[in-house]
């Protein structure tokens, strides 16, 4: 069992430790990543504590790495005779060690640089025996590109090519970047290499994830193409039955108190609403643990419409999102997968939104009744939030999270496992309800490079703080996902519309 991090827990440290120690045996049985054969469905008592940190997958991420260099000593040709190989390789080795440590990635580094065709052949054979999740080659001479190409072609393993400035021209980068399962990093900025390692880790996180798809009355399980996420469909009633079984335990009361205490203010919800919200949070954790799942997406609107629960799960979903657990709305599968992407790749929550073009300001209002609060990252302080009710039903607790103005944002949406919409913008304002109708977290965004706000693509795009276009595009290209964007130029401008 990995250590529990009280800092990312909804309870205070004292309460949390109490729950963890009181339920140590139970929690150990609840790990989603447990090794099992023909699993017996876990029966959890309502007061069993489920550690949210244990709900997040913890895959082993294995990367094999090497330097590629030409036989020494260097004479002419880039990077040049003056390029100090020893010093550079020492520096990059050290940076790689630190990045691997930071990300929890296992890097298996070749003891000596590869500098011949024979050595390339041997390495290709070696990695093929137990293929790692990715290969990293660090180029130390411009003439090493052929070897990188060979390695990509002969292994078929995702390949990260770090070409420090001085080892590539435009032609190398252009051709190399267009090969499938290859990510070329031509820079002196090491953080780009760390981002690449993060991409490999995110892919592994997807592969080790089981998402509960709570809707209709079916129970089955399938696996998503390209990402490898397991999607377990369970009947919608499962959740409200779990909720009904969930009493207001000490954990529930503590979660409710913390959630209320953290709010800037509470507008509509009563104390009972907040306790119900915490019950939904705890019930959701228990459900995920019992199904060996790591995230969920639920037909919440359908449940509210049928009055099956006294509270929509909006507030509970905020708490889960802040702990890195994907909690999606309306059983929108690819909305949830998009939220998972921001969690796994960017280490921060996003929220899926209903997009409203604001035609007077030519902006986009992104609105939903839930949003994570740790917009800057799971380990960063939360953004201010107000507890409201779910506006469409006037029930329960949802959050109006106040997004920081003038900050960059990204809108991302998987339309399928094969395609992603990526747009960026800047936060203009938080829109209050009232005077607006619609959802409680409502953020007005000035889109970048979209001439007409009516052209913004997608629905339930996930809004996330920061401009992450580059790493998202790189992730797509490494894993064969097509990335698209909203049209730069107005599709209305030349009278082309119907």
């Amino acid at each position, binding site marked *: 069992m990995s250590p529990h991090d009280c800092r990312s827990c909804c309870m205070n440290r004292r309460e949390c430790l109490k729950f963890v120690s009181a339920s140590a045996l139970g929690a150990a049985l609840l790990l989603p990543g447990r090794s099992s054969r*023909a699993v*017996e*469905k876990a029966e959890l008592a309502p007061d069993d504590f489920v550690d949210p940190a244990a709900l997040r997958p913890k895959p082993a991420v294995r990367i094999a790495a090497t330097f590629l260099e030409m036989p020494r000593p260097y004479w002419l040709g880039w990077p040049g005779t003056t390029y100090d190989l020893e010093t550079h390789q020492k520096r990059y080795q050290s940076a790689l060690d630190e990045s691997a440590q930071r990300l929890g990635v296992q890097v298996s580094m070749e003891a000596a640089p590869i500098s011949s065709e024979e050595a390339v052949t041997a390495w290709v054979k070696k990695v093929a025996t137990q293929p790692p999740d990715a290969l990293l080659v660090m180029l130390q001479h411009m003439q090493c590109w052929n070897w990188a190409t060979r390695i990509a072609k002969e292994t078929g393993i995702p390949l990260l090519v770090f070409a420090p400035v001085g080892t590539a021209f435009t032609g190398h980068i252009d051709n190399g970047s267009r090969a499938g399962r290859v990510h070329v990093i031509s820079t002196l900025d090491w953080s780009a290499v760390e981002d690449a390692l993060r991409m490999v880790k995110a892919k592994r996180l997807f592969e080790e994830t089981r998402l509960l798809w709570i809707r209709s009355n079916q*129970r*089955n*399980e*399938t696996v998503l*193409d390209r990402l490898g996420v397991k999607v377990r469909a369970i009947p919608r009633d499962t959740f409200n039955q779990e909720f009904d079984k969930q009493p207001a335990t000490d954990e529930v009361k503590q979660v409710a108190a913390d959630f209320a205490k953290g709010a800037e203010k509470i507008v509509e919800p009563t104390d009972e609403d907040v306790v119900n919200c915490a019950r939904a949070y705890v019930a959701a954790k228990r459900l995920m643990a019992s199904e060996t799942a790591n995230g969920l997406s639920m037909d919440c609107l359908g449940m509210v419409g049928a009055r099956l629960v006294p509270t929509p799960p909006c507030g509970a979903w905020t708490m889960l999102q802040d702990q890195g657990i994907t909690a999606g709305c309306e059983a929108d599968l690819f909305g949830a997968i998009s939220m998972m992407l921001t969690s796994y790749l960017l280490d921060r929550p996003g929220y899926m939104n209903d997009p409203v073009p604001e035609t007077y300001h030519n902006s986009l209002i992104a609105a939903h009744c839930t949003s994570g609060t740790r917009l800057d990252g799971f380990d960063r302080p939360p953004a201010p939030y107000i507890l409201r009710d779910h506006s469409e039903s006037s029930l329960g607790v949802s959050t109006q999270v106040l997004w920081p103005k003038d900050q960059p944002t990204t809108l991302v949406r998987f339309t399928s496992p094969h395609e992603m919409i990526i747009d960026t913008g800047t936060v203009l304002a938080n829109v209050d309800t009232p005077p607006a109708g619609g959802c409680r977290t409502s953020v007005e965004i000035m889109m970048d490079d979209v001439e007409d706000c009516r052209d913004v693509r997608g629905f339930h795009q996930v809004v996330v703080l920061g401009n992450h276009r580059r790493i998202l595009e790189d992730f797509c290209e490494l894993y*064969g996902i097509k990335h698209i964007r909203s049209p730069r130029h107005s599709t209305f401008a030349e009278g*082309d519309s119907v």
Partner: protein
Amino acid sequence: MSPRDTTLLLLLLAAAGNLAGAEPIPIGSPGFPPSSVDAAGRLVEDWGTVDIQLSGEGIVDGQARLSPIKLDDVIPAAQAVSEHGAVRMTRTVYRAPIFPEGVDVLQVGLSGTGEKSVDVLMTLDISAGVQLGRRTARIGGRTVLVLPSDAAASQQLLDWGYYDESVSLPGWGKPEGKCDPAFTNIRAGMGGVPIVYQFTVAPGSQADVVLGLCESHWAEAGQRPLRCQVEGAAIQTVDPVAKWGQHKPGTLLFRARDANGDGRLEVSVRPAPRAPDRNPILNVIWLFAPGESPPLEKLIAGQCNDLALRYVDVGGQNDQSVFPPGKLEFRVRLEKDGTQELTFLVACTGGSAPVPELSDWDNDSLLRAARDVWRDWPKDH
């Protein structure tokens, strides 16, 4: 009767008894309706039955011994083993639970049992009404079969026809004005797959090829630009709405040449780079002798079809696959003690098989998907 004959007879009777007694084995995944493998080793689906026969010198008919097995200790599967003289065939079927409905994976293993190498003709007998593409077989818009990547090489090809994974959509076009009726039909490369046609020509020869297009979905330009390529001619990228308007038939002329000298002229239409709508379309193809293409307005009006060496109403009634209908044949050479394995993906109840160009599934990831799902599936469900 000699002891040898008696033994043979007993073996035959035992095999017959085994065949008569073998129950079909269901093949499924958690929560989905099963397919089945019958006593003869045939895979039975809601759209038809997939059977495999072997022929060739030294190869005889063989009866299947069917048994349930578990792959990787957890994946339920069926295995049918049959002896065919110089060849042993092992058919293994399991369900890969891929989103959304799953797909049945049929692995056909052939191993040589004789003293020398053997050429095997493997015939895949599938239901009537199936249209073959380069890597897939379809019934209407449903992909029911994905073929091994090198399977097409042994197929006999017709003189012309489509060679792709696109779908026919008759009546999709709404051309305005008097025009050739073929403009009402299309083939469409759903999801971005290319539309590809091949025509038999004299090796290295030249031809005029005219493509007819009519965009009837998009009203605004910029949505479905197309990249049209005809072998030996310059690529033309066209946005039909920008060039001709919605519902307006248009044509593009290509001075083509069998550039690779293989005696087949290839025509393809793909989505242009960064096209918002990734589904390419094509309405008509005319093939003329070099320099003999008539005025394009006459072609659009449907007045010169008789002059064409080939006139294709793309997606219309007389359109055809370049693959002949009926059985699929694969030639496999087995060296002494050699083995070969071919994997087919077969659509299961209500689903489609994943089109290779649009998916990332391979043998390893399909098996891993099944293993992961079965491993953690609760016993009580």
